[in-house]
């Protein structure tokens, strides 16, 4: 490289390296170091895996962890199932103005804070809420019904909150599928089911994977929706992390929890990429 180009290269590389090392890599290493620290006396620490041991021996932690993972997977799958027909409609059936209008409508809810969206669901679902009143008005029930503070409400909120991140990548990949390829599928004897299975879904795989990864991450790391919509029983792992850090001030255990959550998310993302033969660069970049 010429001297000038070399200088340019270094100038461009520096912010990237500063950002990645100071805000991503070192903080996570530090978090790991804290998590393998045991407090033996005031301001005296020893290295050990006691925090991780606590996690594995306390059923509440373990159950919450598994529950969070499973519910997040469930939320992801449901989001995919709900979003796919809609994305297909926007990408392949709606044309011109209708197409851009529908796409824009999908984006609108996500320009506002997640808090507002959750608040909306609270107004709809709670005992004094719209649905409860509506059911009473129609006469299906006699008294107020509480639909908030349970797993279903939480699921509805999680799916709602991550919808956009599924729709956008799906619409993008589906739009790139040429109409004539679908027509060829029909021309050679296919029908709606086989064309969807053999042509549309394989084509959309990169979009499906990237949508699923993002939605899964958002569900797993969500704190707001489980706290506001979920009940006492629907404990979410992020709530444990929050309480260790902010309420109990036990950073060592909190850091261990954080690391476990990170491990879980990396593991599931890795599995998803392996199963579908995709790479992170291809699906995200």
């Amino acid at each position, binding site marked *: 490289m010429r001297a000038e180009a070399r200088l340019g290269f270094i100038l461009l590389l520096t912010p990237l390296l500063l950002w990645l090392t100071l805000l991503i890599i070192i903080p996570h290493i530090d978090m790991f170091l804290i998590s393998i620290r045991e407090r033996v006396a005031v301001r005296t620490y020893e290295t050990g895996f006691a925090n991780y041991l606590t996690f594995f021996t306390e059923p509440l932690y373990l159950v919450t962890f598994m529950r969070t993972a499973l519910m997040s997977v469930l939320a992801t799958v449901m989001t995919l199932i709900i979003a796919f027909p809609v994305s297909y409609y926007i990408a392949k059936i709606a044309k011109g103005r209708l197409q851009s209008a529908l796409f824009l409508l999908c984006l609108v809810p996500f320009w506002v804070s997640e808090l507002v969206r959750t608040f909306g669901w609270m107004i709809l679902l709670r005992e004094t809420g719209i649905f409860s009143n509506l059911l009473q008005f129609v006469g299906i029930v006699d008294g107020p019904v509480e639909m908030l503070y349970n797993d279903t409400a939480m699921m509805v909120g999680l799916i709602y909150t991550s919808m956009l991140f599924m729709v956008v990548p799906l619409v993008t990949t589906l739009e790139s599928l*040429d109409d*004539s*390829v679908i*027509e*060829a599928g029909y*021309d*050679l*004897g296919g029908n709606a089911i086989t064309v969807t299975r*053999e042509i549309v879904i*394989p084509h959309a795989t990169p979009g499906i994977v990237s949508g699923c990864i993002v939605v899964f991450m958002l569900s797993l790391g969500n704190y707001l929706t489980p706290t506001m919509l979920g009940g006492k029983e629907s404990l979410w792992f992020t709530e444990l992390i929050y309480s260790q850090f902010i309420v109990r001030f036990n950073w060592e255990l909190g850091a261990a929890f954080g690391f476990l959550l990170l491990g879980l998310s990396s593991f599931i993302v890795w599995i998803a990429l392996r199963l579908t033969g995709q790479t992170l660069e291809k699906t995200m970049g």
Partner: protein
Amino acid sequence: MTPDLECVKLTKTFDTIKAVDDVSFQVPAGSFFSILGPSGCGKTTIMRMVAGFLDPTSGDIQIKGKSVLDIAPNKRPVNMVFQHLALFPMMNIGDNIGYGLRRAGASKAEIATKVGEVLERIGLPGIAERKVDQLSGGQKQRIAIARCMVLEPDVLLLDEPLGALDLKLREHMKIELKSLQSAFDTTFVYITHDQSEALVMSDQVAVMNEGRFEQLGTARELYYDPKTPFVAGFVGDSNRWSGTVDASSGNEVRIKTVSGVSLTGSAQGRPLAKGDRAQVFVRPEAIRVALKADGISAFENRIVGTVSSLLFNGANSRVLVRDDASGGEIDVALPQSGEFASLTKGAPLHIGWNAGQATCFAGGTE
């Protein structure tokens, strides 16, 4: 014998535009039929109606004598080679070709044999495992045809499949398509805007313009005996004059052109009376060139002119001759037999042609 494909009074209207206007034709079994026309003439609309992706506004489409209007595209005994081929990028070659067989419920073993056979026939054995993007343009072309032929359709539709290829390969594929057609012995319906593709390959060509068939015939008929001014202008190259009929006797017409030249042409049975507006078409390759006046004395039409430019293009070389009398420019094919090798710009030249080579039509604008 019932034709493989027959369209009866086929009409398609989009909003107020008649894309296809009362078109009827028959395609005999085993023949190569082309629809030739400029873009937007309605040829793609006809093809998509035959394939089942568009419903005709009125008229009927019959395959082997049976109407297929109520049959969905995935059940019709026609298959289509798409303009950009539409090979499935998510499958390998074998799966692409086997796709239709899988839809028909063929067994795995049967699919494998048939795919192997068809690959053999198109001269690409053993590439079933390859990816679509590992093939060259010509190979993709053959795979797209094989993918349809393996289903043994009654009619194969081809929508300008050579458009994306470069010139050399296109020339080669013309010959190859024709030989594939005779090897499979299937009816091909081919649409194109490239007259050379249509003329070289087809048994029958329909020239289409503004939703209607202008003329239907063999390549030879279209070239030598165009029935409409559009066909005369669209198929092959032509010099064109407009004028008024001066005299007519039997088949022969004398026409006084706008620029004042008097030409003799053939009316081919079309009624042309004295005083009618008329236009004359003469092909550059039908004009004889001579250095001296006696070289063209046998022709009814003789013009003395000067070379205004020489367009050398090997066998297709042309010379533009400026008519000394009227100043009009005439496009003339230049024989490469050697005697005109020393011709230069500004040189005097005698040109002439027979009345039979000058096709006259009524009408004309100028």
